[in-house]
């Protein structure tokens, strides 16, 4: 990459999401270490634990870190960080690094989802966010998995096996739950109900993305991007192939670390 500092200058990116906090050490070429833990009620504390853990893993001392950049919803309360950046910019930067061709990025996190249009020079051109309600986020998925008494992992695997996703029309978590329960009571196949839930999220996200006139290639990041069924449904909803970067939940932290290094 042009303008990159020589390796050895290490930066740390920390992404404090509503559900999990991720931290990693970056030396300009590779990720030296990563750590992830639950954010809980004290973002400041989880951020510092994640920071210490990832430094420990990389076997470096805090004084060797040139700059620490935080992102994510909890970034405002972190006093030990040098700078902060929004998760929109951070995710776009991280994914552009991992999958440089990306034009459209879908990110689904614990509490929100976003669609980001990335221009030819890896900058955010436009974005849309859904952060008003749980529908369209990892939280919605978790809730309905719980309704069907499944772990999120099993829920998505079950959904992936379905060939005939049901249509879930409710976008409100509470109504969606009763819709799911009544379908199950009517004897609809469990996998079809589960994939229906995935599809409903994918449709909401796609609807948001459509207003931005998305172009291919499309990438998908965030914790939910590990969900095979969701990848498939997003692809169907957006009408294109979906690429998922390696370790998609770390895309924000990586982006933050890269931006930190660029600003050295």
């Amino acid at each position: 990459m042009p303008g990159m500092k020589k390796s050895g200058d290490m930066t740390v990116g920390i992404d404090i999401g509503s559900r999990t906090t991720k931290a990693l050490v970056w030396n300009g070429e590779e990720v030296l270490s990563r750590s992830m833990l639950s954010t809980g009620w004290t973002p400041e504390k989880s951020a510092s634990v994640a920071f210490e853990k990832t430094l420990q893993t990389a076997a470096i001392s805090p004084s060797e870190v040139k700059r620490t950049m935080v992102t994510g919803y909890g970034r405002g309360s972190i006093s030990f960080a040098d700078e902060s950046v929004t998760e929109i910019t951070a995710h776009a930067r991280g994914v552009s690094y991992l999958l440089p061709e990306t034009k459209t990025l879908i990110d689904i996190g614990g509490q929100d989802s976003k669609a980001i249009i990335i221009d030819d020079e890896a900058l955010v051109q436009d974005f849309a966010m859904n952060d008003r309600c749980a529908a369209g986020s990892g939280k919605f998925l978790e809730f309905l998995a719980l309704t069907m008494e499944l772990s999120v992992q099993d829920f998505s695997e079950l959904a992936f096996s379905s060939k005939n996703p049901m249509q879930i029309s409710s976008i409100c978590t509470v109504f969606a739950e009763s819709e799911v329960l009544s379908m199950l009571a009517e004897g609809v196949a469990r996998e079809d109900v589960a994939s229906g839930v995935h599809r409903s999220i994918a449709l909401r996200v796609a609807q948001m993305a459509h207003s931005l006139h998305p172009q291919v290639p499309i990438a998908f990041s965030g914790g939910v991007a590990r969900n095979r069924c969701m990848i498939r449904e997003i692809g169907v909803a957006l009408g294109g192939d979906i690429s998922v970067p390696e370790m998609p939940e770390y895309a924000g932290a990586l982006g933050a670390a890269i931006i930190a290094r660029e600003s050295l």
Partner: protein
Amino acid sequence: MTEPRQIDFRQWHRLFQQVPDRLVEEIRYYRHLPQAEWSQYLFPPSTHVVYGNRLLRKLKFDNSQAALRLWGFVMSEGERIYRARQAGMKVIAVMGDLGAVTPLVYSFPNIVAFYPDCLWWTPFLMESRELFDEAGQLGLGEDCCFVRASLGAFSRKAYFPKPDLCVGTVGATCDDMATVMSEAEQLGVDIHYFELPHRHDGDTDKTALSGYLENQYQELCRRLEQATGETFSPDRFRETVQKVNRMRSLIAEIKDLSGAPAASPMGAVEMMNMEFAALSYYGDLDECLAVLTEFRDLMKFRANSGQGYQNQDLRLVWVTPPADPLLMNYIEELGGRVVGSEYLIHQTTPIIDTKKDPFEALAEAHLKATLMGSSAYRVNLVIEQVERTHADGVIISGVFGSSHCPYETAPIISALRQKGIPVLSFDVVAPGKRRLQSQIFNRMEAFSESLKARKKRRAG
């Protein structure tokens, strides 16, 4: 003259020590009345903080005397309307008219007009749900636009005196407003319905619409004669309209100055206060002119001498700036400056022809108003403004539940995107919803990051 700076209410409190006593004593409203203690209004924001306007603790204000005067004038409007009644003046509420009928109202002697719709500001200013909850109890809940706060105010009877007449517009206007008016009528308010004709596109034959509007104005004039016991005087009308035209040109001039190339010469919140003066002149046309003239002179001085705020480089046009002024401060904190605005109050902008028959002139000016035109017409105006002000991006803020927002916002966004103009759009959230508000802040920050990155790239 001090360097332009945005300061908080604490700093204004201290700076106020340096304002000469003479000015505090001199600057007054209702100069035609015997001067009472209450007519002074040049006071710092801390005064209004003590009286419960909690948002002022978080806002940044321009450090000039002209801006202080503007704030003082705006913040004293509520009291001023009460004082008007105490002094025997007639009080006319003008709702939903977007500034069209006020010139006619003010051409009657011994009269003030006020704009109850602006009470939407109060819940934000006080960071309080009181007026919204009050409206909610009367049946106007969260699905209604923020103007429902004015219903709360009608019901509480503590924000303005009972109007001698309330002129309310119906027809091609906000439905929420009409709902508020019908509820207010239940509370015993005397309402005269002024019907706005349907929106037109530029090519429509306007003769029929004009005749229709003239009738509406004549009807209103008769109602005002009844309410005030005075006869309409064309001479006084011309005199008033000359002042109104002066005010409209002043506002246009000030808006142009806000785009000064070197640096932002004025805060977006002050600009909003200034633009809203066009609606009902904050209850005192003469003093309002004096306030705006001082304000214009200051901005002219700053623009000509290249003075302005530092580190605000992103040029933005804001479409329907929000009820929550904190957001305007915030974009400035992020390095943005608002070089243009596009409000719904277009009826306040055209110059009224003083040579024509009064009612014909009013109708003609009314039809020039952009909101009388189609959405597409308004879209073009926004784009034209973006190009004229060399804006880097556009922010559109709307109100959830407001009936005009959806069909105005969507076409503007889509047109801007097609032109490759970056746009951020969101709905303002009512006070007390911290999580939602912090999400808006987040989007604004992301928007400013992307605009900055682009600017940096363009710069090489």
